[in-house]
């Protein structure tokens, strides 16, 4: 059974009852995929691995793995980044 901290539980309840955005309250990553060509991530914690075939991005919830070909980082900033290229699949790993 997944251990969830009390603080996280409280944040979930608060954001749900007060209808506040979870990505802001709980620092969850927000992934936006445009076709199979571009992927935007908000609330990331840095790059774990970067190759033209695979990019692993750290998040508060785990990591986001992007697999594809000719991958490049279109833009990267402290909290946001965009990946471009031929994206085959995206996995969120806790």
């Amino acid at each position, binding site marked *: 059974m997944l251990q969830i901290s009390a603080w996280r539980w409280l944040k979930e309840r608060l954001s749900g009852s007060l209808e506040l955005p979870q990505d802001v309250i709980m620092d969850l990553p927000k992934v936006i995929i445009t076709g199979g060509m571009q992927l*935007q991530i908000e609330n990331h914690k840095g790059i774990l691995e970067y190759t033209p075939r695979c990019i692993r991005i750290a998040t508060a919830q785990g990591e986001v793995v992007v697999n594809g070909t000719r991958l490049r980082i279109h833009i990267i900033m402290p909290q946001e980044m965009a990946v471009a290229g031929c994206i085959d699949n995206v996995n969120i790993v806790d």
Partner: protein
Amino acid sequence: MMSLAKGSFWHWRGYVIIKIKGLYLELFINQAIQSGVMLRDVERLSEQIMVAKVSVSGFRRLRVLCRGGKWQLSIVKKVGLPFLFFRMARRKGLLAGGVVALLLIYLLSSVVWFVEVQGCEQVPRQRILELAAQFGLRSGALKSAFSGKVVERQLLLTLDRLSWAYVETRGTLAIIHVAEKVVPDPELTMPGDIVAAFDGVIEDLLVLRGVPLVKEGDIVRVSQVVISGLIPPNAPLHADKLAKGETPYIKAEGVVKARVWHEGYAEATLVQREQTVTGRVQRHYSLVLGTYIWSWKPAIRFKTYTSEERVYQPGMGAWRIPLVLTVTRIKETVETQIPIPEAQALAQAEAAAWEQVHGKLRVGTQLSVPGQTEVETIIVDGIPVVRVHVTQEVLEDIRQFRPLETASGPGVYRPVLGPPPKVQPVPGP
């Protein structure tokens, strides 16, 4: 935030394309973004080499980051306006030339190089251009050296035929738009008299303009003045015209109906002579070669004959050899007389005579009484001939306008003054 990454913004501020060489390039990226540096178009070329685009200020911060020696930073390319300006600053001659070119363009575009005139038909175009040049609008003049309003006003004041003028400037082209006054057709106001086109007796006289010199019942001759355009001396208009230096004459107008007798005459023979070919033929030959002519023309042995000529000139297409053969066929003819019924001849002559009369009638002429026909048969050269003389009385508008001729024209026309002249009576039917 993503909108700040617009390419045009970076191009304006300037950016550099850098190459990063070393291990753990992911760590480099993380440390770069934690330092507040935004990286664009990051591409991993190999295990230890990566390229990226970074702003000029970001590059300075990255250099500090790489001081530890873990990564080697090098600039591949510098892109953007600041670098362009730095390059341009090293080429002062180019800069100076650019500035001079801009100045020249500005100066040259401040000059009017072409002047056009639109809308003139009667007024000579050259006259308008000369007038405009007098007030500063000419090819090569500065735009500040003339005023369009002044040119327009002077054109209207000087040229009476113009009703509107406007000067438009389009770059280095100045267009003078003009509109001319519409003047009435001079023929509508040409002074002159109404004269009689035929001999006749005035039946109805309607004077619209002018002074009548005849009255109903008067007999008039051809070219006699019926309505005069001369303004009487006691009329105020007479003095006005003289004061202006004009002839005291107006265009006489009116309707003049008179009884006129038109005549027609025609003849027709009662015997028709025809030349009949007998079949006997004689030939004449003529051969022309350049300037040499050979001919064989024996004496014609026929009393009456008709001839027919044929020309032969061999050649091909439009090209002909200078050798011409002319063959003249002379055919003997015999005169035969074919009698024509008198009724037929009379009908032909009458039709021809009436056609003459109808050809003289004007549109709208009324036939007041039936026409009269006189027939006479005479012998001319042994052939009986029918002569037909027809007369038709009509009620016709006999007016004809005769313009006043000035002394410079062909001859001098003196206006008719006073009572009409006494005329001999016209022989009626």
